[in-house]
Every structure is written in structure tokens, then in C-alpha cells.
């Protein structure tokens, strides 16, 4: 009997299981197939820091959420419509997020007394009525999987490890997705009997959906009306890595990436180390400090030197970054932010390194800061980070975060011609060369590189004499140099685009954000605009210096709300720089904002009566 098909606009599914259950892999496979079907999508992997926490424990629960749609979407979704729970711990950790009436698929084979106890369930939630609010499907996935994997000599353990493919097959049927892409992937990744078993499980799951009485209908999510062109699905870390390779091609210099493994930045090192055929040199150094040093050494010798890390590593690199500021050498430091302080929440997201990036060095040590806003925007901003570093001879901190790094979305591939050109020149004339004789427009110093005859010179961390670059302890010179270094960074503003307002360019409320909160803020603001409120948003991709039009935009609204995954760091900067009142909306749970949370924040500030306090004391013009 042919089953009914119901059309849906968008669906949010969360796969949850033990960290050894392969939930990330399952989610990624569902994503790849969904992407190639032309849906818009956004993903959110959420996994524990422990590689294999005790099996069945709450600490070991790993989840992968995907929002896919026939419309243009920007976030992985607030609440899943569907939850696949592979064991009691996964159910316990995730059920609170499932929407009322949502579909819950549970592997009942895993609901043993032992596993229930590990998940701290006093009674079996499958029988006690606590799940009545949901559409629950009790499936013995372990048993069904074992029965489906026939005629192999694999051990029970090996067969059990196929059960995520069984669940994936079922989901493919439920949402009308083809199996081919995953089947091909299985045979690329696995060999022999393991590959065959995984494929059998995948197909069996699919056919189970089709034939079992349990499911009365399945769903269709038609493709989205995306801009025409060639697409791929991409995570923030992949886009970052590819962006740096692109920047290296655009400026005609091989890149050197030096790093020390750290979550959630390591994937950038992994990705770049695969691209040696682009002349990419990757060094896994002995520590974070050495990684920063090697990158700076590459820059000193005329290269594109990059180093990547997360917050704790940025702290260790601070002194080397200070040297890059003093020596005025180009360098890009990638900080994929995670929950802190200290080791904090290594696998969870946060935006609390903004002030560390701005001020986390001794003395007056300004540098440029950029922040991508979506996984695919990481590509563009990686190129921008390099452009600024090379044009202005300065270190640039590129602030990504765990949410952008691991999340993914479809990416309309840019054409090579549309990418910016990065121009570099190296002096060769010994008669006119002075190491700190600056470019009039940018204030960048000339980049004379070793191997150039007649331009031999010495630089270093001691204060430089203006123009000659010789060591100088002169008080007035020091003051001049401090100002020149600050002015150089301020002048970067002349090379960056104006910030673009989403919505009307003036009104009651501006919601201002930066980094990975773009999707949630924009979706919330769009919803409030639909409801007729005077709300616009502005998302900053350049954090130091700010775009030239920022103050003008801020002054065009009565109230300013700044949602951040920290305790108000951008708000702190704006209050300090512009003496303007702004309201913070903060969240520090290691989780991204939900759209709903931002809508609530907007509703609250719109109710505030004291409008006049929001428009007092504003400076006439930006400081730079």
C-alpha cells in the first residue's frame, strides 16, 4: 500500500545518542543528502568534551540538530519537531527541547534497567505516561538492525555499530530522501563486510518505514528557492581554511599555518594540512606560543603567517602578538571561541573573547579584529583578515566561535573573479628604504624581506625610532609611536564597507550583534518586523575598527539592544567609545541564542517607557 505524503515547509530533526553511537556521522549524512536536494539548511552539532564518556551516561550524550526548509532559513531551529533518541540518557537530555506534540522515535532496546539507572530515571519513561504529550514511536532499533544485517561474519558488537545507519535509513524514508549519496559514502569510507553491513542496515531502515504499519505517512520538504548557481554544504571551520587558501592564492604568497591542537579549532589545521598541493605549509608546533612564533617568523621572512587556536591559546599567544604589533608585521590569529574561563566548556560555544582580543596584551597594543557571521561567511572574512593584515602590516584577530565552526549551511560558490585582489609590494631600493617610513594613506611600513640585497635591517620588540626603526628610548618618540600604531589601526576603517542595516535605517529599536548570533538575531528581527514593530538590526563583521557609519546608524534609533553570548562585551566597548546607553541581552550557557529568546528580549525593551534615556549623550562623529 502506498503511504500518504504530507508536504511541510520546514522540519527540525535532532539525532541524539551515546557519543559512541555515531550521531554526528548520522547527522552529517542526513545533511549532505538534504543539501543536495536543494533545501536550505542549518546544522548544530552539540557533543561532549569527553571522547567516550561512560556508555549510557548523561555526560556522554551527543546530539546533531538540522533545520531544513523550503524557505530561506538562518538558524538550526529553536525546538526540534523530531527527536531520535538512541538511549535513555539521550531522551533525558533532549526531551525538554522537543516541541509539544513533536515526533519522538526511541530505540526501546536500549531502555534496560541499567541504562535507565545511568540516565537517573526512577521509572521507565516509556511506560509512565510522561511522554504523552508527544507522538512516540517505540522501535526496537537494535533488534531490527541485527535482523537486517544477514549473512556476515561480523561480531555482535560490529553489527550493533550499524544501528545508526538503520535509524538514518528510516529518517530518509520519513522525509523522502534518496539513499545513493550515503551508500556511496559508506563504500568510500568502509571496506568489505563492514561496508556491506552498513548498507544493509541503511536500506532495511528505509524499507521498514515503507512497509511497517507503524508509520501512516511520510513527509516531503520541497527544495528551497535559492539563488541559482553551484552550491556545496560547508562548516565554518572548512570555510575558514578554504578562505585562507584563497587569500594565499589572491596575494600570490604560499601560506604557513602553525597551530597546536585545541578544540574547536583543530579542524582548521586538519583541513589545511590536506592542501599541500597549494604550497600550504602546516606546522603542528610544540605549544601555542611556538605556533604564534612560527607564524610570525614566516611573516618576517615575507610570507602569509597564520596561527589558529581557541581562547586559552589566544592568552598564550598574547606576547607574540604584541611583538607583531611592535614589529608591524602581517599575521592572522584565528580564535574559535569556546566556553570559558580557563578550560571551561571546550566543545560549547561562547563569544566572550572579544575583550581579550581587543585588550589582552600589555600596554597600548591595538590590532584589527574581524568576525564572520555565518559558516559560509567564514570564507569571505578569512580573506578580509588576510587583506587587512597585508595592506596595513598588522596582526589581525579573526574571531570565530564553536557554533560557526561546527555548524553548516549551503554555500553558493563564489566565482574566482568576484574575490578581492590583494596587492603586496616589497621595497628593493636601498637608497630610499627606511624600515619605518610609512605609507601616507595607510601608515603601513614597508615590508622589506630577507634576500633583498642592500635592505638588511634589524627589527624587534624594543621601541622603534620613527622612520629608521632603530632602537629608541626617547620619551617623545615613544609617545609618537604609540599614537602612530593606534592611528594606523583606526585608518583601516577607510578600507572596510559601511555596515548595512537590515530593515529601515531609522526607527525605535536597533538590534546590534556580531559573530555567530547573526542567524538568530536576523530571524527574530524579521519576525518582529512582520508583526509591525519598528525594529531593525545591524550585524558587525568588523570589530576593530568599526565601520565608519556605525555611530550614525546608532544615532538613528531610539533604543539599542545588543544580544551577546557573554556578559555584554560589545555593549561595554560601545559605551566606552561613544558614551551611548545600550541594553545588553546576554546568555552564557554554552548554547547559541534561540530566536524566541531574542524575540522576548526585543518585546521587553519595546515595552520600556523611558525612551529619552536611550538617546542622551551622543558624540557628534566617530572617533576614527
Amino acid at each position, binding site marked *: 500500500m502506498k503511504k500518504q505524503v504530507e508536504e511541510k515547509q520546514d522540519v527540525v530533526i535532532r539525532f541524539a545518542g551515546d557519543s559512541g553511537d555515531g550521531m554526528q556521522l548520522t547527522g552529517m549524512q542526513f545533511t549532505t543528502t538534504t543539501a543536495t536536494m536543494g533545501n536550505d539548511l542549518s546544522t548544530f552539532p552539540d557533543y561532549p568534551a569527553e571522547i567516550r564518556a561512560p556508555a549510557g551516561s548523561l555526560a556522554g550524550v551527543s546530539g546533531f540538530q538540522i533545520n531544513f526548509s523550503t524557505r530561506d532559513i538562518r538558524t538550526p531551529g529553536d525546538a526540534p519537531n523530531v527527536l531520535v533518541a538512541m538511549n535513555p540518557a539521550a531522551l533525558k537530555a533532549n526531551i525538554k527541547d522537543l516541541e509539544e506534540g513533536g515526533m519522538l522515535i526511541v530505540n526501546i532496546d536500549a531502555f534496560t534497567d541499567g541504562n535507565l539507572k545511568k540516565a537517573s530515571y526512577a521509572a521507565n519513561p516509556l511506560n509512565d505516561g510522561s511522554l504523552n504529550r508527544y507522538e512516540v514511536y517505540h522501535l526496537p532499533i537494535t533488534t531490527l538492525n541485527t535482523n537486517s544485517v544477514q549473512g556476515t561474519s561480523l561480531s555482535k558488537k560490529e553489527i550493533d555499530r550499524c544501528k545508526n545507519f538503520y535509524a538514518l535509513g528510516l529518517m530518509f524514508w520519513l522525509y523522502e530522501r534518496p539513499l545513493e549519496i550515503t551508500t556511496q559514502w559508506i563504500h568510500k569510507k568502509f571496506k568489505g563486510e563492514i561496508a556491506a553491513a552498513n548498507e544493509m542496515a541503511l536500506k532495511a531502515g528505509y524499507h521498514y518505514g515503507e512497509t511497517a504499519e507503524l508509520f501512516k505517512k511520510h513527509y516531503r520538504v520541497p527544495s528551497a528557492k535559492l539563488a541559482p548557481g553551484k552550491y556545496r554544504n560547508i562548516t565554518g571551520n572548512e570555510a575558514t581554511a578554504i578562505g585562507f587558501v584563497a587569500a594565499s592564492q589572491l596575494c600570490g604568497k604560499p601560506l604557513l599555518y602553525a597551530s597546536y591542537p585545541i578544540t574547536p579549532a583543530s579542524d582548521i589545521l586538519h583541513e589545511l594540512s590536506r592542501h599541500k598541493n597549494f604550497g600550504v605549509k602546516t606546522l603542528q608546533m610544540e605549544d601555542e606560543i611556538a605556533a604564534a612564533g612560527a607564524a610570525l617568523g614566516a611573516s618576517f621572512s615575507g610570507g602569509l603567517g597564520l596561527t589558529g587556536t581557541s581562547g586559552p591559546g589566544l592568552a598564550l599567544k598574547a606576547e607574540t602578538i604584541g611583538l607583531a604589533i611592535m614589529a608591524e608585521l602581517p599575521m592572522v590569529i584565528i580564535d574559535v571561541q569556546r566556553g570559558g574561563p580557563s578550560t571551561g566548556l571546550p566543545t560549547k560555544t561562547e563569544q566572550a573573547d572579544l575583550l581579550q582580543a581587543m585588550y589582552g596584551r600589555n600596554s597600548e597594543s591595538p590590532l584589527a579584529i574581524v568576525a564572520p557571521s555565518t559558516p559560509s561567511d567564514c570564507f569571505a572574512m578569512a580573506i578580509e583578515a588576510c587583506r587587512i593584515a597585508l595592506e596595513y602590516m598588522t596582526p589581525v584577530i579573526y574571531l570565530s566561535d564553536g557554533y560557526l565552526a561546527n555548524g553548516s549551511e549551503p554555500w553558493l*560558490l563564489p566565482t574566482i573573479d568576484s574575490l578581492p585582489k590583494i596587492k603586496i609590494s616589497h621595497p628593493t631600493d636601498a637608497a630610499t628604504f627606511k624600515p619605518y617610513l610609512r605609507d601616507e594613506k595607510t601608515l603601513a611600513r614597508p615590508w622589506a624581506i630577507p634576500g633583498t640585497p642592500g635592505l638588511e635591517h634589524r627589527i624587534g620588540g624594543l621601541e622603534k625610532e620613527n622612520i629608521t626603526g632603530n632602537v629608541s628610548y626617547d620619551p617623545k618618540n615613544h609617545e609618537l609611536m604609540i599614537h602612530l600604531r593606534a592611528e594606523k589601526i583606526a585608518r583601516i576603517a577607510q578600507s572596510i564597507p559601511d555596515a548595512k542595516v537590515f530593515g529601515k535605517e531609522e526607527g525605535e529599536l536597533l538590534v546590534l550583534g556580531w559573530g555567530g548570533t547573526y542567524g538568530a538575531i536576523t530571524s527574530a528581527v524579521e519576525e518582529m518586523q512582520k508583526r509591525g514593530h519598528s525594529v531593525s538590526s545591524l550585524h558587525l563583521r568588523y570589530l576593530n575598527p568599526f565601520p565608519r557609519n556605525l555611530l550614525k546608524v546608532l544615532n538613528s534609533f531610539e533604543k539599542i539592544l545588543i544580544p551577546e553570548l557573554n556578559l555584554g562585551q560589545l555593549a561595554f566597548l560601545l559605551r566606552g567609545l561613544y558614551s551611548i546607553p545600550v541594553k545588553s541581552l546576554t546568555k552564557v550557557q554554552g548554547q547559541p541564542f534561540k530566536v524566541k529568546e531574542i524575540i522576548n528580549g526585543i518585546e521587553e525593551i519595546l515595552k520600556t517607557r523611558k525612551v529619552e534615556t536611550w538617546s542622551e549623550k551622543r558624540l557628534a562623529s566617530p572617533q576614527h
Partner: protein
Amino acid sequence: MVGETARVAPALTRQDFVSDQDVRWCPGCGDYAILAQVQKVLPELGIPRENFVFVSGIGCASRLPYYVNTYGFHTIHGRAPAIATGIKSYRPDLQVWVITGDGDALSIGGNHLIHSLRRNVDMKILLFNNRIYGLTTGQYSPTSEFGKKTKSTPFGSIDYPLNPISLALGAEATFVARTIDSDTQSLSSVLRSAAHHKGSAFVEIFQNCVIFNDDAFKEVTDRQLRSDNMIQLEHGKPLIFGKNRDKGIRVKDWKPEIVTLGQNGITEADLVVHDEHSADPTYAFFLSRLESPEFPVPLGVFRSVEKETQDQLLEHQIKAAQEKMGIGKLEALLGSGDTWFIKGDTK
């Protein structure tokens, strides 16, 4: 880019390597002698001046790059080997020298030192060992003797010192040598050997700090004492020392022993013969443990072996990748993985 020795350099002299900066070490400092020998050896190497880079950390020794008229980078405390690794990795055509001291290399920068040595990064590391912190006005260093009284150890140091040569050998350095600031002949000869070595060359230089640790190496610098307190290492020659060259080192029960030639039937044939090319570092380590006052201090080249360098390995990997995968094309990289097309008419 020009190879280190690929081009015939114009005839250079010592004067070509003197920068326009005034040298600001204390009068009588051992650093002057080292600087002079460096400036003497560089023009002999046949390398264009612009292809030298001197990198240093922090400390008295680390000011040296300012005085040598090559490319130079005075960096931060302890990090010179890491920064130099980046330079050599990016530009294998450059000859890279690292100038460091006992605090810079062995205390704050210990990690970078051992890792650059184990990777065999092709750079020459000159460690000026004066067994004291000079620039911070006289605290004990990782090579200061146990019990040493300094500003920070008024009751004597309770830290056991480490032996830089043993450390370098433990880190698998391919070239390890020791010399003295005041012995110009030994100094220039060791610097020359280090410069010609392809790979990490580690040179410990006993350097006298006249202000905070004067005469720290008296037993090997004093004309009256030195012959009895040092062994000049020569490849293929037995370990003989002493004013009358009648003493030697032999091995008994895996331990070194001082013997006198001619006594108890001892001849040169009983002595250890120096082999700097021994592939196994055990012998060099044994030598490094000969310490004053029990034994004469060995000076010269402890170890010199060939091993593929880090920059060569890196270049080979890139070449191999380009041969296998073809030179990278950006368009192909962007479109790698699973891609799909959205047709124009759906808009």
C-alpha cells in the same frame, strides 16, 4: 629565491657585517669576542649577506643581531627557536642563526629549544652560557652551580643545574659543540663547522660576565690551569689532555677514568678515540658528562651527523603532493565535496 650557496657572493669582509649601531655591552664582556668571531666567519661562507637572518630572544646575548649587518629579528624571551622555525620553514634559502643565552634557551625557552633540535630545523643556535642572569642584574640561571649565592638566592641556590650539551643530545641534536669566548681559534673553528652543518647546530659558548659572574670558567680560561682542565676534541684522535699531554680518558666498567700514559703499561691504544660522526648519541652523551672538577671539560665538536632537515622534509611533502594531486587550483578546491546546482529558472 636564491639558494644558500647557489650564488657566488661578492667578496665580503668582516666590515660588511658590522652594523651602524653602537655596541652596548659592558666593557670586558665576553660577548664582544663572540661578535667579532661571528663577523669574521660569516664572510668566509660564500653566502650573500642578504641571505643571512639572525634571530634572538631576550637577554644580553640577544642584542647581538643589532650589531650584525644582516637581516635580524630581536624577538621575545625564549621564543627565538620557534620564530626561526617559521622563518626557515617558509624560506629554506636563508641561513638562519639563533642567538640565545642560558636563561633564554634553557629556562623560559626550554621547550622551543628541545623541539627545534628534535625536528632538525636547519639553524645555528649559539647559546652564550655565562651561568647568570645579566640583563636583570644578577639572579641565578639554570646553569648556575648548586649553592650559588646571587641576588635571588642569598642563602644559596637549591636548584641543580643542567648540562646544555647533555640536553641537546637528549633532544637528538645533529650537531653539538662547546667552545669558549676567549679562545678565538677554537671559537672560529667551531662557528665555521656549525655554519657548514646542514641541520640544527647547537653550540654552547662559555661566556664570561665580568659584572655578575666574573671568572665563572676560570679553570678552562686561565693559561696556567686550562691544559689540565680541558680536552680539545679532535675527530679520530684519542682523548689526551694535560700540560704534558700525558693524561687520557679510558672507559672502565662503563665509566670514564683518568689515566696517565706510561704508567701501569697504559698506552694511547687504551684511550677512548673521539668519533664525532657516531650515529648513536650514547658516546657523545658519555663525553658530555665529563664535568669539572672531577674531569677535564671537553671542548670542540661532540657530535656531527647527517639527517634530513625539517625544511627539506616539508618541501619534499609539498612536491610529492603537487606531483600526486597536481598544483592546487582554487576553483577545484571551492567546488570539492558534494555539490549541486540550482537552476536559474527556480528563482
